[in-house]
């Protein structure tokens, strides 16, 4: 029987679009009957985007100044 575990194992290939038709069909069948897996799929798909936003950093001012000084010194050579 095709379980939630199977469906979660397949999500990545499903989203990458690398899935044979038959497997795709079985996954869709499971998703049609299993709302929690649909929520899992949606939140799995939203995860990278949220993480990308959370990863935005600013270089601290002090380190930024050091970078400028370092490059000024090295680029003249």
């Amino acid at each position, binding site marked *: 029987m095709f*379980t939630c575990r199977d469906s979660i194992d397949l999500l990545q290939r499903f989203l990458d679009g690398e899935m044979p038709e038959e497997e795709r069909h079985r996954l869709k069948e499971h998703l049609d009957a299993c709302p*929690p897996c649909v*929520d899992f799929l949606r939140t799995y798909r939203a995860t990278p985007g*949220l993480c*990308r936003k959370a*990863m935005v950093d600013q270089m601290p001012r002090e380190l930024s100044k050091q970078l400028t000084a370092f*490059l000024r010194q090295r*680029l003249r050579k």
Partner: protein
Amino acid sequence: MADEARAEDERSLTARAQAGDISAFEELVARHKDRVYGVALRIVRSEADAAEITQEAFLSAYQHLLELRGDAAFGTWVHRIAANLSVSRLRHLKVAGETETPLEEPEFTDHGLLAHYPQRDWSKGAEERALDNELRGAIRQAVDRLPSGYREVFLLKDVEGLSYEEIAEMTGDSVPAIKSRLHRARVALRAAIDRFYNES
């Protein structure tokens, strides 16, 4: 249009830098330093190391500036250099016996059903919504906690946008191994975000 103008502007800055205009190069540095520093920091998790990697990446970009040809974007290129440096730095930092938190895996019942169903679908509008600080903190903490091999792959693929093949070349791992780690990293991060939404 704004993006196009920006890319055009970046090409002309690159051309000027290639012709020896240091101020053009400095403008390129100013534009990209935050993101270059950011990716290094997320991979190596040390401000000092990330600052060094940022310096090395821009210096190396400058020294090889003439190798950058045609339409290749300076930004993409310098990010690749920084990612590469971060990955090899991480290899050196991994001390023997370093303990890492094991990866969080979903739990299933004996029948292979999800043991904990997502209680709400927080994916709606996630793309457009601005991130509040608490969620941002929770995500950063969850990423930092990933075992390094998983963290690295997740950052390179899902944050930096490298291809599986590029990551394989950088890390020396196989594409199937990378895909499997990426999937498990996403599953663990999804669980961390899910917990955040269900507890707050």
